[in-house]
């Protein structure tokens, strides 16, 4: 396992090899393992160890990056030379800033809780197989077939630069995802945490199994506008499509749905969203692609778009732009991607605000005269970038709710839904939880009851 002192030593070697005005080195990688099961057996089972060193050099407004996973001295020398060669042929970029000094950038970055757990790092293949055995035994008890994963990892992220900045983050992660399949229906659950002790494989398996047998013999109901109850993973996967638009550069590039909409009320008054890497349910490193510490940023408050996030260069550029008086506070927030890049920045540690009247999914069902309960969404894509119309499918547990009760499973729907309208039509929300899906990054989000959700077609199952 690459450690902090070894990384610092590699950085010094790289620095000696470089003739550039400035050098920045990113480290990433680690050990990961994933046990995959289907048809009630383990069918794939993998482990990997890999570390990547990424060198950015800069010569007076010109910069480029070169990356390798070979850590011997000759390879490090070559990667530095490659980066320098690429940088030297660039056209000077007047917007390129000097690399940051330690402490430069975001002003009030909070400390994060520890995200490294020795017992998670020490999980063996046999222990992962034991967890799969438990899940399979629950599937067999219910006469179902199961598929999914049990994975663990121990990873590092680090940044060092020639102006004295050095930051290091190591953490563990663990994840379980379970699909239970019946003859004509299925159910799904997924959870992850830096600490494997926080995962409950039996609980996840039982819930997925219940969804599978309760949605058996799904009936077709017509497409149309329905009240929907979106479980947290479904909320996560759909709202994830808007957060790249909260980067300052996306406003400057005029590709954001927030162009001309910052400081306006775009969503319902019950929507509060922040980016907060230090939140106890969040994960990841407390610094960005340049090593700037991540600040907590209130993105949406009472439905009003309050702030954007900024890499250092984007903040400077925004201050000089025609947009500067229409986008709220402008300052580096520690959300930049590694340079050079075209996307600028994005908030990746999303936390939805808790509703003072948090409502459980069961309470949402009980208060619904007619609606659809959605476990999971799938294959979501953007149809219209400014109205933020998204299309996608329901999957693995879709139910008709009538008169306050789940009645039966229904065939899966295709939706075409404006995200702006959806977040304006949230009738009630649950307590935000750490959720994980497949279409977006993990977030802390609540379940939501949404009015007039637009299903446009029904599929065959």
């Amino acid at each position, binding site marked *: 396992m690459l450690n902090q002192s070894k990384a610092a030593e590699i950085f010094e070697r790289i620095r000696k090899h470089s003739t550039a005005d400035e050098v920045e080195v990113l480290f990433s990688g680690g050990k*990961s393992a994933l*046990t*995959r*099961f*289907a*048809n009630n057996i*383990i*069918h794939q*089972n*993998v482990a990997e*160890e*890999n570390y990547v060193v990424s060198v950015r050099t800069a010569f007076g407004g010109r910069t*480029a*990056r070169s*990356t*390798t*996973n*070979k850590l011997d001295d000759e390879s490090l020398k070559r990667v530095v030379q490659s*980066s320098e*060669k*690429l940088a030297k*042929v660039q*056209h000077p*970029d007047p917007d390129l800033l000097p690399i940051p000094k330690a402490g430069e950038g975001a002003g009030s970055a909070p400390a994060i809780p520890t995200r490294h757990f020795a017992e998670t790092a020490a999980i*063996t*293949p*046999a222990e992962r*197989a*034991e967890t*799969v055995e438990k899940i399979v035994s629950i599937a067999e008890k219910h006469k179902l*077939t199961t*598929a*999914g*994963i049990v994975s663990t990892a121990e990873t590092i992220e680090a940044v060092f630069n020639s102006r004295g900045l050095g930051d290091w983050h190591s953490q563990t992660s663990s994840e379980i*995802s379970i*699909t239970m399949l019946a003859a004509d229906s299925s159910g799904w659950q997924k959870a992850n945490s830096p600490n494997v002790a926080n995962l409950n494989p039996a609980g996840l398996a039982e819930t997925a199994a219940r969804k599978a047998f309760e949605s058996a013999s799904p009936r077709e109901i017509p497409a149309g506008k329905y009240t929907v109850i979106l479980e947290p993973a479904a909320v996560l996967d759909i709202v994830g499509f808007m957060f790249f638009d909260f980067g300052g550069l996306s406003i400057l*590039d005029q*590709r954001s749905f927030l*162009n001309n909409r910052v400081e306006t009320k775009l969503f319902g008054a019950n929507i509060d969203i922040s980016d907060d890497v230090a939140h106890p349910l969040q994960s990841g490193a407390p610094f960005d692609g340049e090593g700037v510490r991540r600040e907590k940023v209130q993105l949406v408050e009472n439905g009003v778009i309050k702030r954007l996030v900024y890499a250092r260069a984007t903040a400077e550029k925004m201050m000089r732009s025609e947009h500067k008086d229409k986008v709220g506070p402008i300052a580096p927030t520690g959300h930049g991607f590694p340079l*050079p890049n*075209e996307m600028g920045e994005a908030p990746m540690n999303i936390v939805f605000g808790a509703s003072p009247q948090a409502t459980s999914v069961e309470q949402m069902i009980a208060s619904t005269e007619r609606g659809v309960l959605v476990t999971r969404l*799938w*294959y979501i894509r953007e*149809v*219209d*970038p*400014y109205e933020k*119309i998204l*299309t*996608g*499918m329901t999957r*693995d547990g879709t139910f008709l709710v009538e008169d306050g009760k789940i009645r039966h499973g229904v065939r899966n729907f*295709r939706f*075409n839904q*404006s995200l702006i309208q959806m977040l304006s039509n949230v009738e009630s929300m649950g307590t935000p939880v750490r959720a994980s899906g*497949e279409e977006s990054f993990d977030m802390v989000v609540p379940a939501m009851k949404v009015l007039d959700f637009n299903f*446009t*077609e029904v599929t*065959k*199952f």
Partner: protein
Amino acid sequence: MKDISSWALNIATQRGASYADARVADDRSRALSTKNGKVGGASDSESFGIGIRVIADGAWGFAASDDLSRSAVEATAARAVDIARASARVKQHDIKLAPEKPVTAEWTTPFQIDPFTISVEQNIDLLLQIDSELRSVAGVTLAETNMNFRREEQWFVSSEDANIHQTKYTTGVGYAAYAFAGSEIQKRSYPNSYGGQWQNKGYELIGELKLLENARRVGEEAVALLKADQCPEGAFNIILDGSQLGLQIHESVGHPIELDRVLGMEANFAGTSFLTFDKLRTLRYGSDLVNVVADARQEHGPGLGTFAFDEEGVPAQCTPIISNGLFTGYLSSRETAHTIGMNRSGGTLRAESWNRLPIIRMTNVSILPSEQPLSREQLIADTDGVYMETNKSWSIDDKRYNFQFSCEMGWELKNGKRTRMLKNPSYSGITTEFWNAMDAICSRDEWVVWGTPHCGKGQPQQVMGTGHGAAPARFRNIKVGSAYKGT
């Protein structure tokens, strides 16, 4: 590299593996991009390592490492065996592989110009010229270009004595113009959206695509779309351009024929398939004009699914998938071939790199062109309906029945003529109903092997390039416009 692989195979077999293979891979890539007159990204990367796959106690194990020292390779092989033994705790049957004659072979993508020999300055100058041409059109608010090269060198050695050295070259290039005004963002891309055109070729691809010559038109179309009429909703005859048809094949033919999906191995992530075994050689997948093959051979063309051997040493093959409309074949591997009564793999096991387990992937899944001469303009001249070009969004359910695609630009066709530009065209349907509605496809002159460079599948997820030969084709009475219905 043979020594390194031998260390792995020796330890694996000493520890009791009944089968082992090792892939040492050395990947190199370059990515260049521009945005609004400036270089957006300039990066080189390389990745080197070994992936060791074993069967022990009748179950699979796989371990990979970036450390190719003897001690690390041997430890990685031992880890793969330990993992396989853990897998064996939850098994029902022992893994059995379809027989394959081991070969010793060398192969390299045929190319005229090694893309890594072209100077970065020359490439950036070309991209900036394109960028300038795009932004010379009043109303273009964002211009983006990209150019990508990859060289993948791999040594595959197995305990059955296979010894294969392959080197693949990939070139990709594309650009897009955006126009933002009022409450609308429109976009046009060339030669395709989401990164352009990608093929297993050398730098010669860059010259073949007439990049600079098309830039102004693309910029003008992006701006014109802002004032175009909204594509109407209803049932229409539609013509899809070749790039869109390529993606339609990828999503509604390529994925459902993957045998691992059919067998439930992807049920938790990528999904399953409506193509259950009872449908093989009985399902009318499409009209009589629909002929689809999965062809990894060089003679099929420079697709991203072209190679000499797959990642378990099986030679590239051509498998008929749909023959005159009848469903005739799946994509298979040595482990899965027996499930469809085959005694040999179809040769479609592929891995993103050394650190990923090979899984069943599309090769070049292509629709064959008409044998009768038919140009795109002749097809348009024979059609009332909507012509759609260049994908904008795509979505399909997890069994691959219901799909919805939208395109960047449409044209209303009346009396065989393009009568007005249409913005936000979309269409949707059910896979087999759609393919049965195809009543014309253009001939070889219009047929291009399109690249889909970023196909995601597997856990941990692997991104793979696939190829799709396609020509413009017509479909009768298709549902159009539901993407905007009720929104």
